[in-house]
């Protein structure tokens, strides 16, 4: 940030020879942009609008029905009280759990890998390629591979995958049902803490919808395996762009390596961290293919169900188009809440 002033280019003032030429260039640039603007307008924004419209109608069977029902489809998801509501609440729970662990996990592993690689070790490029390589694989393949690895097996019919490995290593206690685990960690109303919360009127947080489904951990492992290399690459580029003078100066001032990271490098990497968080978070919010290929789209008590999966099932399996559209719009809003402030911030940065 200190050197940004030096980098700022000085724009040469345009030579105004002929006004007509400027106008002509403006027309041409508009003409060139026009096709993509029209295409975006139709295929992105008009369709978003159309989805939004559908979500306010009663089109919940095969035959189109455009009766306006207001926010009824949304109400069913949030306060309806039926299975639609329960499932959607669980979806949000899973999404939030996944988002936090996946983004946090990638940040930590990516940063650690980047600092280790920054030690100028031999064969750095080989390690870099190895860590970055999972990025080249599609989520579908990752899902299938991790499904094979994490398929649990049973005591009676034989352990498989990682569970077999753990058993053979004598670590049977670490076996888990992985992505088929129905366990949900939440504050049970019958525990002392639950009873205390009830007594102070906070009983409503002692529900499974406000908890963490153990099966999500498996999805986090698979997604984290794929994306931490990418995080590492971004961090490594960030670390490399920090001039050595700064570290040297800190060392001269008597700072330890830890303090250099704590007070110099990490603060300077803030823009990288923000970019990584935005990129990973929107991947996490939209996650579908990984979960689908890993679990087949089914899970014990919806322990690995996510909004995108629910949307797809609701729309195309159950032909409840309006209900599906409402889930899609909620997904869009969730991603929007994340992306829009970032875009605004970035535009301001650029303007400066």
């Amino acid at each position, binding site marked *: 940030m200190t050197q940004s002033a030096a980098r700022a280019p000085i724009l040469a003032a345009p030579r105004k020879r002929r006004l007509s030429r400027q106008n002509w260039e403006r027309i041409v640039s508009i*003409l060139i942009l026009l096709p993509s603007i029209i295409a975006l307008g139709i295929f992105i924004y008009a369709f978003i609008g159309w989805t939004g419209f559908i979500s306010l109608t009663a089109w919940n069977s095969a035959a189109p029905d455009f009766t306006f029902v207001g926010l009824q489809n949304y109400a069913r998801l949030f306060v309806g009280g039926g*299975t639609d509501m329960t499932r959607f609440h669980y979806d949000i729970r899973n999404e939030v759990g996944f988002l936090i662990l996946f983004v946090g996990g990638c940040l930590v592993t990516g940063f650690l890998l980047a600092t280790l690689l920054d030690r100028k070790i031999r064969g750095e490029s080989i390690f870099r390629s190895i860590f970055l390589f999972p990025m080249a694989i599609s989520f579908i393949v990752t899902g299938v591979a991790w499904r094979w690895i994490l398929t649990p097996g049973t005591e009676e019919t034989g352990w498989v995958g990682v569970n077999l490995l753990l058993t053979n290593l004598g670590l049977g206690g670490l076996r888990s049902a992985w992505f*088929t685990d129905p366990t949900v960690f939440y504050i049970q109303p019958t525990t002392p803490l639950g009873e205390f919360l009830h007594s102070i009127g906070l009983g409503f947080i002692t529900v499974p919808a406000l908890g963490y489904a153990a099966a999500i951990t498996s999805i986090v492992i698979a997604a984290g395996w794929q994306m931490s290399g990418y995080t590492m690459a971004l961090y490594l580029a960030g670390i490399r762009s920090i001039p050595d003078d700064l570290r040297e100066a800190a060392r001269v001032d008597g700072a330890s390596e830890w303090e250099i990271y704590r007070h110099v490098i990490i603060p300077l990497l803030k823009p990288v961290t923000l970019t990584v968080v935005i990129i990973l978070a929107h991947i996490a919010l939209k996650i579908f293919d990984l979960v689908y290929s890993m679990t087949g789209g089914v899970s014990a*008590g919806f322990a690995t169900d996510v909004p995108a999966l629910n949307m797809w099932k609701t729309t*195309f399996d159950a032909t409840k188009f309006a209900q599906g559209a409402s889930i899609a719009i909620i997904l869009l809003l969730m991603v929007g809440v994340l992306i829009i402030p970032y875009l605004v911030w970035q535009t301001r940065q650029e303007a400066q």
Partner: protein
Amino acid sequence: MNKVKWIYAIVALALLATLLPTGSAQAAPASALACSKTYTVSAGDTLSGIADKEYGSVKAYWPIMAGTNLKNKEDSSFAHIENPDLIEPGWKLCIPSADDAKAFLAEFPGPNTPAGVSMLFGKGAKGQLIVASWWTNGGEFAGLNEMFKQFKAANPDVEIVNAAIAGGAGTNFKGQLLSQLLGGVAPDTFQLHAGWEADTYDPGTLIVNVDDVYARNKLESVFPPTLLNMLKFKDHYWGVPVNIHRSNVLWYNKALFEKAGITAPPATWDEFFAAADKLKAAGIQPVALGGKDGFELQHTFETILAGSMSAEEYAGLWTGKTSWKSEKVTNALNTFKKYLTYANADRDALTWAAATQLLIDGKAAMNIMGDWANGQFISGNFTDYGWAPVPGTKGTFVALSDSFALPAKAPNVENANLWLDLAGSKPAQEAFNKLKGSICARTDCDYSTYNGYLQSAAADWKVDAIVPSVTHGAAAKPSWATKGYADAVTLFATSGDVAAAQTALVQAAVDAGYPQ
């Protein structure tokens, strides 16, 4: 500078031009594919190899297939290619000129659409018959071919076009077909699960009723009345059924039963749980259950429900005549809950086929699954299995059925009707089902050469009360079957909360339009 300006303008115009709708070329008659030479297939040849040699593209084999099939109509010394992946040494092929091939490929929409497939085949004196199905391999494909043979023998002037040749199978097929029908392109007939699945095709709009076929073949007297009820949707018939599968079957491994000292398959749930305890005591996994395909739990609970009440009451659950608040539903939920405690813990990681495999491998003793499991036993060379109706469902046959429907825009309606006549006939059903591993929808088939299970299913089919399967699309509209009902069962299988599950099931029925 001026030059740059012009380049800009040209680029801009070119980009704009991509937005203009391209004029659709008038389809030239496919018979323009004249042979420029002939080619005799020798061992090791492939159609794409020949196309590469002739036209310089391994993908340009469709004109050769089409040209040869057209020529075959005039001169039977030329081969008839049903499947581009299967050609035999000695076959005489017709190689159209490169220009003709190019023209053909320009208008060929690909082999996955009825129109595209119909271009690959010649026309008989009485035109074509385009049959769309997802039966592309194994016994199902063999069975379909048997029906084709019978049709050809009776109607030598009609060219059969199998639109399943290179098309996607199963669920892909349905989505693809629906979008084609909506776009106004239709095969002459297509595969349809009997019952509520007709609703997907907006009956009366995309498909037309086949009441005439029933009337002229007197089909109402050869299908059981309960099946006719299941087939009737909005007071009309929308398809001619060719086969029946049963979903309420309890399969068991005989050797494991013997080992645990169980002499007869359980007929009631008390007997079932007693047997399961014996198996457990003998160190055997009592029940194999899948879950990964997303229908196994729903399938199992549906058969338990059917066993907890009379067939009439069960059918009534899906038509609003029986209340979901009934105590019998509560009992079924409790039975299901107990059943799950005897099943393998990793059910959500196993497909139904993997669960069935546990039975074959002697790793689990019992499994509730439809009779397509029988096909897996046969192909796995496993004979030491027994079967019984799911406890409590003796006398009830939970059924699903494949039928052939008539699209409103079928290009060869007359031939389609001939096909539907055949589909309902006794010889066609006998030949088809033996290979497919199912039983006839008709009650008068001869089963003497069928496998043991199929013989017993056929005997039950004649006398049992028939109810439609909801999980397999026959009983209720898709939003109820795949969402309201399915989600309630999924939640229950983990939570075990009987009261909540029943409330959810009641709510699902209300949502489906049946106030409780």
